[in-house]
């Protein structure tokens, strides 16, 4: 189960389990509520995972469609979002594998100018923040799939080690060591990206 508390409660009076049941009972629109409830959360995570808004958008949609097709296999012992997340993650991995090698720099360029920005900051600050975010994303994409995945689970999704272990089907000890190595890898890649930027005279 992923953190659910991180997400603000929806105005809808029905919780996820009720919506799932309603969908299975033939109320398709109930699934629409689930879509709207989780699409942005999943999208943000997938953008970080894939480095592409376009891919992430497709993946979110595919994941929801698959989830609906297979909804009767969803078991109540997992949270809906966890289940959905796993679907999306597996889709992402299989598609990612197909497209190898991924040009991480192009991916970073693709999203140039599309970085969301906090309101109320001056243009210069915005620019700095955008550049910085792009560099971080670039570094993240240079990290191996497995490491990027666990970083996203921990830092974007805010999962506990237990939750990560559940999602990845690995023991908590593995979560601990993998996350540690992932952070070291990202740190190294951040330095490389930063150096590249400096070399280009930026």
């Amino acid at each position, binding site marked *: 189960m992923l953190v659910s508390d991180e997400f603000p409660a929806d105005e809808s009076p029905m919780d996820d389990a009720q919506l799932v049941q309603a*969908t*299975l*009972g*033939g109320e*398709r629109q109930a699934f*629409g509520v689930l*879509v*709207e409830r989780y*699409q*942005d959360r999943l*999208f*943000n995570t997938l953008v*970080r995972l894939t480095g592409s*808004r376009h891919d*992430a958008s497709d993946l*979110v*949609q*595919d994941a*929801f*469609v698959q989830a*609906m*097709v*297979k*909804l009767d*296999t969803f*078991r109540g012992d997992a949270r809906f979002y966890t289940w959905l997340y796993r*679907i999306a993650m*597996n*889709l992402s*991995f*299989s*598609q990612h*594998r*197909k497209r190898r090698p991924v040009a991480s720099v192009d991916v970073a360029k693709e999203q140039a100018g599309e970085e*969301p*920005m*906090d309101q109320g900051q001056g243009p210069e600050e915005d620019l700095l923040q955008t550049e910085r*975010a792009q560099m*971080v994303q670039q570094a*993240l994409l240079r990290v*191996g*799939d*497995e*490491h990027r995945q666990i970083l996203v689970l*921990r*830092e*974007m999704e805010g999962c*506990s*080690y237990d939750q990560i272990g559940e999602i990845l*089907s690995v023991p908590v000890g593995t979560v*601990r*060591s993998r*996350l*540690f*190595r992932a*952070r*070291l890898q*990202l*740190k190294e890649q*951040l330095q490389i990206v930063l150096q590249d930027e400096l070399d280009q005279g930026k």
Partner: protein
Amino acid sequence: MSDASFHDTDDELLSAYVDGELTDAERAAVEQRLRDDPRAQALVAELRAVSETLQALPKFELGTSLREAVLRQSPIRAERAHAEGGGTRRWAWAVLAVAAALMLTVYLPEANRDEQPLAQAPQKKLEARQNEPQLIVANEKATPELSLRAKSPAAPLSETIGGTVENIVELKPETDNIASADSFVTGTAIDGTLRGAPIQTPQIQPIGELPAEDYLVHLTPVDRSVGTTEFDQLLASHGIALRGDSSNSSNRGAGERRTDLFAVDKEAEETKADKPTEGELVIVEAPLEQIQQLVASCSGANSPWKSLRLVGQDGADARLLETKADDSPAEAGIAVAMESLSLSDDEGQESHGWALHLGRNRVALGLLPEVEAVQRELAGNERQSAGEPSDNKQQPKATIRVLFILHPAEH
């Protein structure tokens, strides 16, 4: 940076410390270390910085609701989506759908050896069976387009032949005999791959009781040069001998410990020039390990199998295998199951199925650790109950039942 230089359990603790994921004792030890280890202090600061850097990334939003797009693509679910039936019913539906798409005619095997193949069976036999749970297959001799790959995702299967038997009956009023199937074909284990298949009023013939399987495996060859012969070889190479009607043209070995319950009527196929619909249904009963090895062997770059989908009973996660890749840790550990790799092809067709694309998958497969544990336990129990010595002798292994569905190649 080599992992080895940092692969230090103590340093891992520092990372977990940053996350607040330590036991009290561990945290005390780390805090003790931090008091007089500058390197540890620096590492904690770095790890924390990395963590905060990621957390500080701005959040993306889609901007538009995907609600309509998703609902438009998803199959219309039947009212009674959750039938009370168990695995058998669900499978029955899945098999019906698959068989209808495959245009297979199925013989009753072994247990009903004395009976005529149902493709030639008189109608009275069908009627006689009306009150039993039955496997239904379609015998439709036409249109290679009925193959599983839908050309257009526009029309969900549920719209075409319905998610419940009522709908099926409605669409095919001439096949009254399937009304008896109402007692069991109530599940809606609609196959993602089947959505959109333009099933055209196939004749439905009940042919026998369908036992519950532990797993359902869909197997698709890379092209038409691969078919039932290769499938039989695949089974044989894993010690799974097929029993079957010797008059059947497929490669049957003599009776062995494994049973196949269904064989394809080749006659129907031979009427077609290019045999586009060569397929097969085989139920295999074998030790889990044997099945696992068989499935794993389908993987690889030179495999004649294009995709393999493993579905657990009642459609739940069939967590039987995982990918293993020593040279690419990133690709290891992915559970190969329903909830695993996608069945998207390059054109994006079938993107809503669940499968492993074997041809593109260069990652070896191995048993999930928990499956191995269960296996060991089972083996241990059986050893005890059989009172046999624990070595040398051929151990009676727990078997699982797997329904293999060999799909025809698309091209």
